[in-house]
């Protein structure tokens, strides 16, 4: 039989009972929708986590000062820790051989006198090297230099949004007022895409809304004791190659524990480890979701088998006729296999369309990032086709093994 004719006749037969066919495709349809939507949600969540981790920098190691209350700080100092300090940075720089860059960061509580509407810029005192670690590009001027720090020059570098919002004064050589001091703009950063993180573990700064000062110049804002002022918010280190991270992390831990006398007033964040964790988690997540979806596909398959068995017993006479005019067993089996495959394909393609739509709606209404990959479409399609073939197999075999004479006599 020509394939085209076989498909045509198969379609005709299954369209004979439109409602029944439609109902039996639903199982596969929703199975495919489930597979696609779940994989899309999973993939979206993975991408989001990975992007956030990448913003932290995959070759970076971050040492962050823990948020301590005044009491906790005092206790830490009492126990012999000097909190996160420039000295920590200097000893790490000396002891770690694989660093390509190291920079210190201090969050400064001061406010811009200019009104930037709803944007509150984060003001950071930084050392040289931070721009290389973060891969910052200048759109104008330069970044904070070594000389700025040693001479405590009152200069600043603006994130792109800050520069834009400052308007006229957001340009090189303009002077802006921070707290009670004047700072001269020496550089403006290129815009950098930034994605807000849901989890604080991966959170990174929106550099577009950040204002950088040379570390040390923040002394002009306060009159409190210098010891407290010397506390850093963060030390960021970058290694030359990714594989040097584990060893560098181990050494960093040893050095920091020794310097802080085992007081845990800091945490070490390793984006690479976070990324591995995120990938492992995602894998488990996909496996669980995939199994649930696969079960619903299986149920769809059982529905199709049910319908095909009903179809075979309704069409025993037709099978007898076809056998009488020359169909062999394989022709009959093929006809019923093809019909169950066609039902499956209708369900599967409908499911793909609906699944893509559903994923889109999830991203619109629930605000979750969803990504439909060709991989998820092909895996759900091939699973559906596999299920369809398997569930068509027994009814087809049953049809093929009917005795033609008995089939012809069937009323």
């Amino acid at each position: 039989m020509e394939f085209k004719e076989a498909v045509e006749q198969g379609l005709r037969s299954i369209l004979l009972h439109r409602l029944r066919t439609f109902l039996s495709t639903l199982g596969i349809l929703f199975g495919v929708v489930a597979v696609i939507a779940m994989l899309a949600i999973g993939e979206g969540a993975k991408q989001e986590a990975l992007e956030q981790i990448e913003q932290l920098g995959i070759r970076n190691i971050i040492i962050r000062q823990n948020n301590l209350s005044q009491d906790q700080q005092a206790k830490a100092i009492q126990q012999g820790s000097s909190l996160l300090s420039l000295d920590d940075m200097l000893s790490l720089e000396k002891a770690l051989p694989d660093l390509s860059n190291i920079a210190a960061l201090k969050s400064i509580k001061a406010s811009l006198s200019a009104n930037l509407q709803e944007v509150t810029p984060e003001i950071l005192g930084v050392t040289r090297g931070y721009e290389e670690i973060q891969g910052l590009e200048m759109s104008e001027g330069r970044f904070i230099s070594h000389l700025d720090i040693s001479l405590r020059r009152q200069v600043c570098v603006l994130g792109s949004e800050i520069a834009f919002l400052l308007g006229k004064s957001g340009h090189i050589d303009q002077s802006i007022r921070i707290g009670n001091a004047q700072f001269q703009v020496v550089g403006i950063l290129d815009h950098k895409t930034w994605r807000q993180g849901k989890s604080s573990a991966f959170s990174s700064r929106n550099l577009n809304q950040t204002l950088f000062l040379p570390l040390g110049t923040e002394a002009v804002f306060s009159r409190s004791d210098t010891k407290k002022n010397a506390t850093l918010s963060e030390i960021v280190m970058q290694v030359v190659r990714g594989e040097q991270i584990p060893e560098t992390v181990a050494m960093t831990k040893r050095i920091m524990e020794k310097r802080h006398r085992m007081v845990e007033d800091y945490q070490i964040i390793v984006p690479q480890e976070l990324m591995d964790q995120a990938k492992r988690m995602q894998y488990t997540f996909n496996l669980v979701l995939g199994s649930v979806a696969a079960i619903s596909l299986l149920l769809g398959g059982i529905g199709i088998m049910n319908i095909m068995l009903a179809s075979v017993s309704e069409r025993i006479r037709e099978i007898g006729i076809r056998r009488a005019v020359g169909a062999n067993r394989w022709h009959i089996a093929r006809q019923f296999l093809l019909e169950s495959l066609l039902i499956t394909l209708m369900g599967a393609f409908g499911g793909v369309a609906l699944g893509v739509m559903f994923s889109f709606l999830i991203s619109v209404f629930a605000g979750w990032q969803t990504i439909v990959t060709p991989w998820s479409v092909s895996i759900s399609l091939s699973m559906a086709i596999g299920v369809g073939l398997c569930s068509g197999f027994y009814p087809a075999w049953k049809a093929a093994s009917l005795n033609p004479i008995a089939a012809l006599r069937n009323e």
Partner: protein
Amino acid sequence: MHIIEVQKLCKHYQLEHGTVKALKGVDLQIATGECVALMGPSGSGKSTLMHLLGCLDRPTSGNYYLNGQNISDLEDNELSLIRAMHIGFVFQAFNLVPQLNVFENVSLPFLYRSEKVDSESAILASIERVGLTHRLQHRPKELSGGEMQRVAIARALAINPMLILADEPTGNLDFATGKAILSLFQELNKQGVTILIVTHDSFVGSHCQRIVMMRDGLVSHEKGS
């Protein structure tokens, strides 16, 4: 030249309570171009014989030569191909596929033939021979009984068969329509088609050249013209 030659054909069925001997050694010859009626009371084995002659079943023992070829021991696939190529069936209950139209029902045997031929002209020609050219797109349920049987005859004719086997072809038709169908068979027979009609209606038998009477699994006697 005999299109059908049957020697000592036996068919036994194994049932729960013993063996049923439906055919007990039938000898029969049918020549090319003959129109033969196979008659006998129910249970005489005429249907079993027809199924064997139509390659729907295999004999327990004995030989069946179709056009000189011994086909007693062929496999299902080979028998199916012989049915698709050389044998046309006409049944009492018409046996058309309900979801297919007239043209498609007639084309059914061609779907199962291994070699590709230009089937369309043969199909159209055979529909024309039974006078249903105006009904090509109709489904069986839109046809009368007589028309349905004509479609079945067209389906049997389309493959240019060595033999048409008709099982009570007028059984479900009123007298006038049945008579028309019988004259169609006679006309086809005149054009050279070999026909075997299984019936217990002596009126049908009277339209055939030869009557083979069966009784108790054997050919009891023949009446020839």
